[in-house]
């Protein structure tokens, strides 16, 4: 439902000294486009170095680059490094394709780790509680962004936002082929894939750069005020 729109927009049009006409899409004719030049000339390996370097500047953010055959080992190691105990993760076919199902369906349980796979058959409260009780959350990112050390997460049925937010540490797996110079390229692709194709964006698109931080005490950037305290990105070299 949309309420009070006509009067509101007519007042704005009056302020702008013209009648209100919602049909005329304004032409954007930017004289400057500095964002397209930044880092756009780098090769994929140069981008990878830039990504690793930037993650080094973020608080508590680790990057591991592995081939697809080694992802399982890398994820297992990362889970152990973050203290193991309990893991929440997305219900995501991409994990299965990388052979991680052996970890979360068998091996971890055998080792005594608690595992919660996001479950749309359970209530949201149950999903929240199990995720909140987990030490580590594992998600799969659509993009990695070199300049800012960012991973981009989409929400979906099996992809609960809470998994990246509630546990103490989060692990994001991302394909190297989705590494982009900066946010510029990622949003351009989203515009094409969703907006221009007449599709609605996922309910949440989250650009996440490292763990939760706060600068509210003396402008000193410290970790972990609400969300995760640690982050590990596992970059899968799939090319």
């Amino acid at each position, binding site marked *: 439902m949309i309420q009070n*729109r006509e009067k509101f927009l007519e007042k704005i049009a009056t302020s702008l000294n013209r009648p*209100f006409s919602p049909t005329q899409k304004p032409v954007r004719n930017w004289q*400057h486009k*500095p*964002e397209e030049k930044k880092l756009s000339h780098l090769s994929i390996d140069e981008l990878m170095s830039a990504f690793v370097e930037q993650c080094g500047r973020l608080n508590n953010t680790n990057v591991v680059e592995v081939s697809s055959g080694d992802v399982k080992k890398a994820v297992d190691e990362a889970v152990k490094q973050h203290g193991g105990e309990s893991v929440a993760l997305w219900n995501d076919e991409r994990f299965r394709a990388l052979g991680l199902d052996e970890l979360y369906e068998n091996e971890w349980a055998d080792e005594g780790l608690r595992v919660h796979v996001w*479950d749309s058959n359970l209530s949201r409260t149950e999903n929240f509680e199990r995720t909140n009780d987990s030490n580590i959350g594992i998600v799969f990112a659509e993009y990695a962004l070199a300049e800012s050390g960012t991973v981009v997460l989409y929400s979906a049925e099996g992809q609960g936002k809470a998994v990246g937010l509630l546990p103490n540490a989060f692990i994001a797996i991302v394909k190297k082929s989705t590494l982009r110079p900066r946010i510029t390229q990622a949003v351009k692709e989203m515009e094409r894939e969703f907006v221009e194709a007449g599709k609605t964006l996922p309910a949440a698109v989250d*650009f996440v750069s490292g763990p939760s931080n706060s600068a509210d005490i003396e*402008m000193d950037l410290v970790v972990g*005020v609400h969300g*995760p305290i640690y982050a590990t990105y596992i970059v899968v070299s799939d090319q």
Partner: protein
Amino acid sequence: MAIKYNDNAFKDNVNTNLERDFMRGAVTSAQNRLHGGRLKAVDELGDWEEWRKHGEEIRQHVLDNLDYYLYELSENVEKAGGHVFFAQTPEEANAYIQSVVQKQQATRVLKSKSMVTEEISLNEALEEIGCTVLETDLGEYILQLDDHDKPSHIVAPSVHKNRFQIKEVFVKKLGYPEDGSADAKDLARFVRTILRDDYMQAEVGITGCNFAIADSGSISLVTNEGNAGLVTTIPKTQIAVMGMERIVPSLEEMEVLVNMLTRSAVGQKLTSYVNVITGPKRAEDVDGPEEFHLVILDNGRSDILAGEFKSVLQCIRCAACVNVCPVYRHIGGHSYNSIYSGPIGAVLTPLLAGYDDFKELPYASSLCGACTDACPVKIPLHELLLKHRQVIVEKEGRAPVSEGLMMKGFSVGASNSTLFNVGTKIAAAVMKPLSKDQMISKGVGPLKDWTDIRDFPIVEREKLRDWFDKREKKGGK
């Protein structure tokens, strides 16, 4: 809490705050810390001036086509399953939000930081209908705990407190151990454990909106803490409130402005979280809000849009101007007596809340231009302050009579060379008997205000033009 904090005169608020040594120390050190970080972050882009021009052209284009983009936004929010409410006044906005909350029979409201909800006193409106409202931004949370202390900065609301004072608040209100550490990291970690239960119980989440995105019907939220992420994930109902000018055409412009915002505000390439929310959760999703409401507020903005202060609406609320302001540095945010402080506050507050209570603010600037220089979207802040002064003097006729007479004298005296010459000679002569050691330390008349603080140096007695006359007579060079 609305825009205005108290009924004291500006001078009294300033004098009170000048006595607050803790505040002044905290603000000065925050400014010093941010100065280098911001410069490094913008220099790193390599062509900051081009970015600024781009930021400016985006914001100007949006303002020039604001009616269209708000129309497009509302269409797309609705298409994504959300509701849009256009509110002319704070009362309309609050009444709508109250009705949404009451319909859910909710009482537990969680907020992530939003200046516009401060502007409309939303917390009070929700408390009136029996809700508990919890601020989750660490800075806002500290203020709320400390018996509703007021924000003194648009990005870092509790910047006027140092970590020892914050620890004291935690000891008093949350049972933090007296001998516990006052390290920022430990204080933040402590809040994490306390707030987690509140997140899990929340029924309604309320956020602001950094930039709405017209073509996708989204809102974006920029935080470091991830609190906006949680506030838009756990509660079943989400309400976002935005000032009507906080909008961009597409994700592409959102990206540019968010980059400029985070670099200018805190010297980061991106903050830890940028959340782009489009409508309520999809039917098959488990988390995210089941209902999404967007409230778009005018509250005087359309009047600003029509006038000579239009460019202030370009503001992206990064507070770079606040962080470089040498006046803010000493008097702190509370002196401005407004939720919007610093140079942007001195321009915006009189526009939103009138000259009656805020006509001193435009004079609380030495016009040093540091604000204009730092603004990522090129708002000519010091020129707007000057424009306010012009309006106050020439349109509103609110200047003191004595000042008006003095300026009239100035206009006559300074524009006639003979009068100017005689006048300045008299000035020099009049000052002579007052001076010792070629300095005046006790002035009279207009000079008194000067010599209350500093001596008035007279280095030479001979006027330059007289020296020139003599020299030419002597046939000097």
